[in-house]
């Protein structure tokens, strides 16, 4: 995984991809206990927004580095990486607000816990609800920041339903 994220950062540093943020289960692992996942979701901002959005330059750059396409992903250092255009307002905001994590030999950008929670709520699959519950139990999120995101993206009603269904006794 470290090598995979290093290549994603390299793609950013060399201008192949614009601002990006790791999302999904891999990003959640930065805040919670890691759970098994089979791929990496990388959300990418296209700025300025092109008339026709294409991922071809990413596929071509990865192919040159020896990383082949595999279905809807690109196999990078053993991990299928899905490069997903950030086109929806909440996801765009999540990429812009992402935090940089740096270690000696690795730099990467990860969505905040609050944005991951809001995206999980909006996506609303059973595995998203499970992840959301883990976030709530961990107490890691800033409640004010989360509430602010939920209000701005019209997710308060969905949050109340989630609370009633999964959190309240």
């Amino acid at each position, binding site marked *: *995984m*470290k090598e995979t*994220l290093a290549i994603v950062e390299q793609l950013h540093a060399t201008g192949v991809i614009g601002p990006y943020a790791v999302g999904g289960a*891999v990003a959640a*692992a*930065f*805040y*919670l*206990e*890691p*759970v*098994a*996942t*089979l791929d990496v979701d990388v959300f990418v901002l296209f700025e300025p927004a092109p008339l026709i959005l294409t991922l071809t330059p990413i596929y071509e750059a990865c192919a040159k580095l020896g990383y082949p396409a595999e279905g809807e992903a690109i196999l990078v250092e053993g*991990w299928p990486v899905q490069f997903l255009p950030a086109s929806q307002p909440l996801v765009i905001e999540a990429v812009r607000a992402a935090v940089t*994590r740096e*270690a000696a030999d*690795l730099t990467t950008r990860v969505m905040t816990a609050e944005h991951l929670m809001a995206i999980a709520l909006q996506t609303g699959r059973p595995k998203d609800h499970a992840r959301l519950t883990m976030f709530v139990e*961990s107490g*890691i999120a800033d409640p004010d920041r989360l509430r602010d995101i939920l209000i701005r993206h019209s997710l308060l009603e969905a949050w109340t339903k989630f609370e009633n269904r999964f959190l309240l006794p």
Partner: protein
Amino acid sequence: VNSDLQKIIQSKEAGRRRLRELPWLEKLEMLDKLRDRHLFLRQMRPKPDQAPH
């Protein structure tokens, strides 16, 4: 909840908390291991035509 069950729940919760507090680089290594284990278990699972009847 009886006390034995309570102990098990507390111990599981402590384990989860330990994992949560691992440094992020170690968590990335764990993702590799979890993925490998998941794929191994999937491989070991009998295919539908091999399942006992």
